[in-house]
């Protein structure tokens, strides 16, 4: 009887520990995806700023925006396999997914604009997506 109780206790502890570490791993994955997105958005903003200041070429800027669009799309895809086992994590993932999606859209539209007209009229979309990503990043880091 005592052995049975110990076994059940041990199993429950292991399950609890595994559940906690799975949740922590999921949060780490979300933070990683956000960090990648932050890096892509910040690179895009810097590249556009340098292009507007005539310090960089159109080809180099277009290439960078294309690369960053790819990077942020990879970050978005990396969210798909994350296992969700709590409403809190579900809500975090939705918020992260929305922020990254907004970033991806902004980077892509900046690249298209540059390819089409040779200039990026406004970086407001990128800046807003960047702030969204940054605030989620600090929120998730502090909750970890």
């Amino acid at each position: 009887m005592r052995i049975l109780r110990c076994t059940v206790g041990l199993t429950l502890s292991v399950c609890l520990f595994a559940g906690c570490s799975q949740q922590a791993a999921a949060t780490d994955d979300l933070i990683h995806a956000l960090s990648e997105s932050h890096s892509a958005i910040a690179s895009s903003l810097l590249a556009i700023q340098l292009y507007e200041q005539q310090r960089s070429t159109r080809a180099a800027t277009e290439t960078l925006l294309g690369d960053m669009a790819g990077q942020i799309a990879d970050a978005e895809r990396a969210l798909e396999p994350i296992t969700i086992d709590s409403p809190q994590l579900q809500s975090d993932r939705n918020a992260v997914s929305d922020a990254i999606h907004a970033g991806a859209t902004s980077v892509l539209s900046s690249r298209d604009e540059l390819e089409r007209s040779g200039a990026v009229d406004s970086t407001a979309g990128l800046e807003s997506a960047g702030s969204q990503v940054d605030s989620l990043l600090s929120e998730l880091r502090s909750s970890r």
Partner: protein
Amino acid sequence: MFGLALGILTAIGGFLDIGDLVTNAVVGSRFGLSLGWAVVVGVIGICIFAQMSGRVAAVSGRATFELIRERLGPRVAILNLGASFLINLMTLTAEVGGVALAVQLITSVSYLLWVPLAAVAVWLVIWRVKFTIMENVAGLVGLCLIGFLVAFFLLNPDWGELGRQAVQRVSTGTEKVSTYWFYAVALFGAAMTPYEVFFFSSGAVEEGWTVKDLAQSRANVIVGFPLGGVLSLAIAGCAAVVLLPQLIAVTALSQVMLPVAQAGGKILLGLIILGVVAATFGAALETTLSAGYTIAQFFGWSWGKFRPPARAARFHLLMIICLIVAIATLLTGVDPITVTEISVVFSAVALPLTYLPILIVANDPEYLGEHVNGRLLNGVALFYMVIILVASIAAIPLLIITGAGQ
């Protein structure tokens, strides 16, 4: 004097390849200058390694793999050959991808379209251009990468902060200790890529070096490589000054150019892109030739650019096959930067296999007579053998634990 200056300049210009460019920028953007020590350790290592293999080639008149097979026997040497050849092929793939990525920065046309053209251009140069012209032009145009040093000074860095970074581990706060060590091994592998040594020693045979050329060979290595190492540190420094404070982690070659554009505008940017094309193209030539050298020397085939292609047909055919493999690999869509990062780590893994035989031959009076290693050099070389072994053993576990530095 002219030959000496030319040799040193080409050694500086030819020191950097896609592995150095990418790894130093990645490290600078994530750890600042706190891994600068790994570049210094790697540069001293490659100086010792290249100096020994250049001396072996100049004195014995024979190249690396011919001697490895003779000294270690075919069974041990085949292992050595297999590992070295595969890593060289991976590096060749990365270099061809690097040329294509650099051309994309000029044209904004997808690098995938440039991959076959870059590989054909490599083959044409190997087929038609004389060895010395090929080596000197790539090395001299590669000197444009001195622009990174110019950019670093133009950025007016906070020297106190960089000094602090150089003596203590810094990161963006999310980096793990294992990732730090992964990149230490990667930087070491990037500085001590085996192909550089195969090319250096086989090139000595191609150019007909003798004992009289030993002093020049030593000067090329001892002056040229450390100055090339300074450029590596400048790349990391540029990333540390501009990208690290904004938490931009480098994942693409285009990001490496941001600090350059910020510091020196379009002119410096153009100069650096030209330097990147030359450096990666030069390294693609060297790795392609190294692929031919290793196999041909091991099996005793006729080899070398000093022979007409018809008299070294298997050597040339092998290089064409390697270029086709590189094109096919890149056209699958695999990221050339990922190939580069993995190739530098595997360079560290395979390093003992080439370093140890050269160390053994460099101590063998039967091959080198009075030109065997001195006591001091042997002491340092043995110490490096230990470092190389540690890096080699740690590389794969670190690669797995960190998910290739993620």
